């Protein structure tokens, strides 16, 4: 490759991004961009028609993903990405609907929607970037903050128990559940590919460093250090019992694919049930 060729070379993600919106707002060392890169790779490898892929985000740092991906994309309100996605999917069942948002958005303010979409087995893929705090608003304590970690609204350290996202997802009825750190690039990509292909409710949790707030407040080093720390602290245990997946402050991180099972989706169940009960009177929907 000559020097000129190198200068002409394009970022392989360009095709998937709104380049007129770059540079993005994320901090240097933040893991969100890495997860977006994995998502783009997954789209490329999945060979699905990008016209059929829709991204819905809520509010927060990860909530900005919808604004950068070159797909039909919706930046909705805080906590409501999942019901927005539910409406899109049910209105146009051909769509492959992805919710891309943060832990505070999906499991704090939006937690109720998460459990109900999982219960219904709504056919959507949820990618949750978990950085253990509310980053956009300045590093407040979250439903995911480990006990002992410091946050701006937990200045003496957090003492509340936190959610284990895979445990919650399984209990609520999700059919695909995985957890990785942002440095598990290829594994995140593979999980997203699998989730996109899976008819049913999928959750992929990705642990990422929040360098400016969580890491700085807790003196955990820069983004690269923390990215590597999470990676080094992780242990891959596919199929692990989701009751064992609690995250302790700077402790071991069990990662892997925990759940991958078959169950009728909401629309499939609706069509089957109504056909059985109503026979010819029922107008099949979206199949």
């Amino acid at each position, binding site marked *: 490759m000559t020097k000129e060729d190198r200068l002409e070379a394009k970022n392989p993600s360009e095709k998937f991004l709104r380049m007129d919106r770059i540079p993005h707002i994320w901090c240097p060392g933040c893991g969100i961009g890495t997860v977006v890169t994995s998502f783009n790779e997954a789209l490329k490898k999945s060979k699905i028609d990008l016209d059929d892929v*829709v991204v*819905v985000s809520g509010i927060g740092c990860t909530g900005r993903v919808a604004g950068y991906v070159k797909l039909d994309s919706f*930046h909705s309100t805080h906590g*409501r990405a999942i019901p927005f996605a539910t409406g899109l999917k049910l209105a146009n069942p051909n769509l492959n609907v992805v919710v891309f948002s943060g832990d505070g958005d999906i499991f704090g303010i939006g937690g109720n929607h998460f459990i109900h979409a999982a219960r219904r087995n709504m056919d959507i893929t949820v990618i949750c970037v978990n950085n253990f705090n509310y980053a956009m608003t300045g590093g407040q304590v979250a439903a995911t903050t480990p006990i002992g970690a410091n946050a701006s609204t937990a200045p003496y350290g957090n003492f509340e128990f936190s959610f284990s996202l895979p445990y919650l997802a399984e209990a609520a009825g999700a059919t695909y559940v995985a957890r990785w750190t942002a440095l598990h690039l290829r594994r995140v990509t593979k999980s997203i590919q699998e989730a996109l292909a899976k008819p049913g409710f999928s959750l992929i949790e990705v642990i990422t460093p929040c360098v400016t707030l969580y890491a700085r407040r807790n003196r955990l080093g820069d983004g690269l250090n923390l990215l590597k720390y999470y990676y080094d602290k992780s242990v891959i245990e596919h199929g692990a019992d989701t009751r064992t997946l609690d995250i302790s402050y700077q402790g071991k991180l069990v990662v892997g694919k925990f759940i991958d099972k078959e169950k009728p989706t909401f629309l499939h169940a609706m069509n089957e049930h109504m056909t059985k009960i109503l026979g010819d009177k029922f107008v099949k929907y979206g199949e």
Partner: protein
Amino acid sequence: MKKVKADPKGVLTGSHYLDGDYAIAEGGLAAGCRFFAGYPITPSTETAERFAERIPSVGGVFIQMEDELASITALIGAAWGGKKSMTVTSGPGFSLMMENIGLACMMETPLVIANVQRGGPSTGLPTLTGQQDMMQAKWGSHGDYEIIALSPDSPQECFDLTIEAFNLSEIYRVPVFVMTDECVGHMHEKVVIPPAEEIEVVERKWYEGPKDKYLPYKLDKDGIPFMVKAGDGYRFHTTGLTHDERGYPVINAECQAETIPRLSDKITDNADKIIMLEEDQIDNAEIVVISYGITSRVSIRAVQLARKAGMKIGTLRLKTVWPFPEKRIKQLAKKIKAFVVPEINYGQVVLEVERCAAGKAGTYHVPHMGGWVHDPNDILNVIKEAAK
């Protein structure tokens, strides 16, 4: 604006004996609504029940969501997925919807919300009537915006105005509210549903130009942008943040100044086309009784009694409450002695009447705190006082 005949699949042509809640569901189906997301709340639940029963044989989706925040947000998603969508609720649920009503206004999303009002605040009077959400309908979400609110006074009008609500929402790309109340919602009357070919429905303002030229918020000649739906290959973006014509967030005073007035102006500039009023004996009236919803039917008795006593009473019924008929009220204020405004609240729409009357005519409120309708004599007494 493209008008078409209603899809006969959703039209239950014939003469029926229905309550207002059911008639709202039939109006939605006739208007082409094929997505309903709702949460049970008295006294509106029958609309959701009717939709759940009817939609499987029409072709569409009913889903009972986990709360009203989810219901309204699912409607916005479904609208962008290409469907006409609606929900129904009452006071507490309406309060929960407010943030995302703002999102629907900001994204310029057509959808319909029926509010079968009950007494408030808080849980208030779950099973008894009220008209206490009228100002909330106009101002309930934060920021500056305008919506459209219609107020039916009978089951027949619940049917007719729900269709009208869908048509207006598509023309102006705005949430439209059908503001009825427990009395009308639970009142059984004859509802005539015409044949599908006699029902005009407005189609969405679909964009049809080249794909790479599409800008989600580029204005058409009428000031309303064209719409597309997810999955059609436009790869568009929209957001609840202040945005430019590309739908991209722009967080500064200039973009705010350019974008936000338009959300109100598209409604207020077209107020004459939107507003529907019903007037009676208004030409040489000294007193005009202004009312809406169930209260307009109770007012009839008070007006009859006053006329029998020789008083010159006109009536003006607000089928459209928002945008408010400012122009008409200002005209009348120059000619008459006073307005009398009965409503089942502690003073809401009367404030708008007073503002428009601007001291040129008197304004008398007949409050009722909810739980039942006015005694016509209470209205009559205020009419007499206004005539003094």
